[in-house]
């Protein structure tokens, strides 16, 4: 009898330990992901610094025949991307309340808004009269918007994976790190865009 009890106690304590271990792992993952994002932000900061230096020191900044950049369409794009940060937050709230369909609806809405942003970017790129190799203006423009667009694309891809995983039974038993990290990444991409929009479109 005592043996059985000890065995049960052991099982119980090992379960607690395992649970704490999982909790710890999710905490580690989130911490590591934040560290990674901080590091990743330095690439953007470097590009921004390069852009500022080019813009303030280059004598023939705009390529011949280019007046500047159209702001209206990118501004609409900006509003959509910034709003999607709130939408993804609502999706997360629904997941916390364990309302999976609410989560999926708003999550899908975020994906749609992100995809629309990419579409708008592609349309804008097609309408421009300068290319990647049109001096440092063309180079920095496509480098910044392209590198950021790659991050938006990655974000939408991650969101797609998380959406599919939400249909797996027992997916959230080990916590919601994937969803939380994707959401954080989305906010990161969003903040970067705001700085980028100010630098490229507002400051002309």
């Amino acid at each position: 009898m005592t043996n059985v009890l000890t065995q049960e106690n052991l099982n119980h304590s090992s379960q607690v330990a395992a649970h704490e271990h999982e909790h710890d792992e999710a905490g580690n993952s989130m911490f590591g992901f934040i560290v990674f994002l901080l590091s990743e932000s330095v690439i953007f900061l470097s590009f921004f610094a390069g852009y500022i230096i080019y813009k303030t020191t280059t004598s023939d900044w705009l390529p011949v025949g280019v007046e500047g950049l159209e702001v209206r369409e990118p501004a609409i794009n900006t509003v959509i991307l910034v709003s999607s940060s709130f939408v993804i937050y609502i999706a997360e709230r629904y997941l916390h309340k364990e309302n999976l369909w609410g989560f999926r609806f708003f999550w899908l809405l975020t994906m749609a808004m992100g995809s629309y942003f990419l579409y708008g970017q592609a349309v804008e790129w097609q309408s421009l009269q300068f290319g990647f190799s049109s001096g440092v203006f063309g180079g920095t423009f496509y480098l910044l918007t392209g590198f950021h667009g790659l991050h938006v694309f990655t974000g939408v891809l991650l969101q797609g994976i998380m959406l599919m995983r939400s249909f797996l039974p027992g997916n959230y038993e080990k916590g919601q790190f994937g969803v939380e990290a994707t959401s954080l990444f989305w906010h990161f991409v969003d903040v970067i865009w705001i700085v980028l929009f100010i630098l490229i479109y507002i400051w002309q």
Partner: protein
Amino acid sequence: MTQITPEILTNKTPESPPNPPNWLRYFSFSTDHKVIGIQYTVTAFFFFLVAGIFAMIIRGELITPEADLVDRTVYNALFTMHGTIMLFGWMFPVLAGLANYLVPLMIGARDMAFPRLNAAAFWMVPFFGMMFILSFLVPGGPAQAGWWSYPPVSIQNPSGQWLNGEFLWLLAVALSGVSSIMGAVNIVTTIVRMRCPGMGWFKMPIFVWTVLAAQIIQLFGLPALTAGAIMLLCDLSFGTTFFDPAQGGDPVLFQHFFWFYSHPAVYVMILPVFGIFSEIFPVYARKPLFGYKVVAVSSLIIVALSAVVWVHHMFASGTPDWMRMLFMISTMLISVPTGIKVFAWVATIWGGKLRLDSAMLFALGGLINFVFSGITGIMLSSTPVDIHVNNTYFVVGHFHYVIYGAIVFGLYAAIYHWFPKMTGKMYYEGLGKLHFWLTFIGTSLNFIPMHPLGLMGMPRRVASYDPEFAFWNFIASIGAFILGMSIIPFLVNMVASWLSGPSAPDNPWRAIGLEWLVSSPPDVENFEEIPIVISEPYTYGTSEPLTENMGG
């Protein structure tokens, strides 16, 4: 490695069934930080030998004033790949290996925070390392613009092919950056979140402090190099003009991106070596580390200062006077936290009962060389001196004194010190001492002559030179060949000891530290029971136990 098989297999002990010491795991995608640590170290050593052979050919070319050994184009490729492979193939991987092996043991963790990420980061090393080597086979040969790859030289692409040496160089450097960032995220998370109970910040060994400091630099510095490398790749392959002055680009901007990372990168390499010195001196002098807390914090001061010194590489790049002044002062300030460490080590040794084993000899030699290279460093930080010796052998001499004289010495010290822990075998002390003296004499003969050469005005990266420089170059080449020979007793020692050395006890040096409380080599899980730390490290001369549950 295959010769090791039978020995390792017969070494199998029945009491550790979950840990079959099977040599094959060193070739597998193992997630054990100790296996990965050794994988890193051995792989790095292979690239050390490759880049070392390049150095031998370079010094062979320079033994006479005429360019008569290799073609000048080959010479350019050799010094470029020597520097590149030494840094990205040897230095960073071997340091990652030591950090991997030691940090979890020192902080009482069972493994790193992200074991699979850890293995993935390692397996990129042989891949990009081979990319560097195989770039010798593409048309036009490997990159030839020096390890700093300055434009516009680096974007010329004389072969006209899209697959050229510079392209592969940039790709391999980028992969190395990804691997390093993965490692840095892992190590920082491990140190911040996986310390055992009682292991507060000021109970961590200095090696852990310095690894943390170094990895923080990786995290904020490497992305800047990545940004510059992406832009350089676009210039080289996609027709942009970021760094092409003929079309409105700014080549100096690349230098900013490059040095914003690559000067702090030197601290990434030497900070862990400061940690190694701080671990070794107390053990072999039987005294507590002098000024533990100050030594710990000074690493973080170096991190902060390292972000604002990079322009001292660009005093001759059209840098305005106010910037020269600013960066001269910030660079000189680096000597304060490093000076604190040097005095702390001297005070630790002072009056101690010294035991001159190989590890201690290398640590002492490294300390002496570091002081010497620190003095020439202060000279170089001063703008007028720097303008005078810019791009001369003085810079090459200073740099190699830091890299070989201090860092490689520190790495050897670490390998000797922790070899019994890693392999469970003792090394041969006589061969270790022979290795030390050959290395010390070789280093001095090789790198001291570069200082007078630089002051006389011999430029770096040349295959031929004025006969007035012949004397010092001859001495330097002889030193280099001695340095090349010095590897032989080391390799013989390591391989022979690992195969058939006497078994090592758990704590052969009577050292204090969590890693010395577990068996040699440690079990897969490191600790049977997670230790609870109750005292500061380096309590030599007191009877205070290190842990509550494991003694020490």
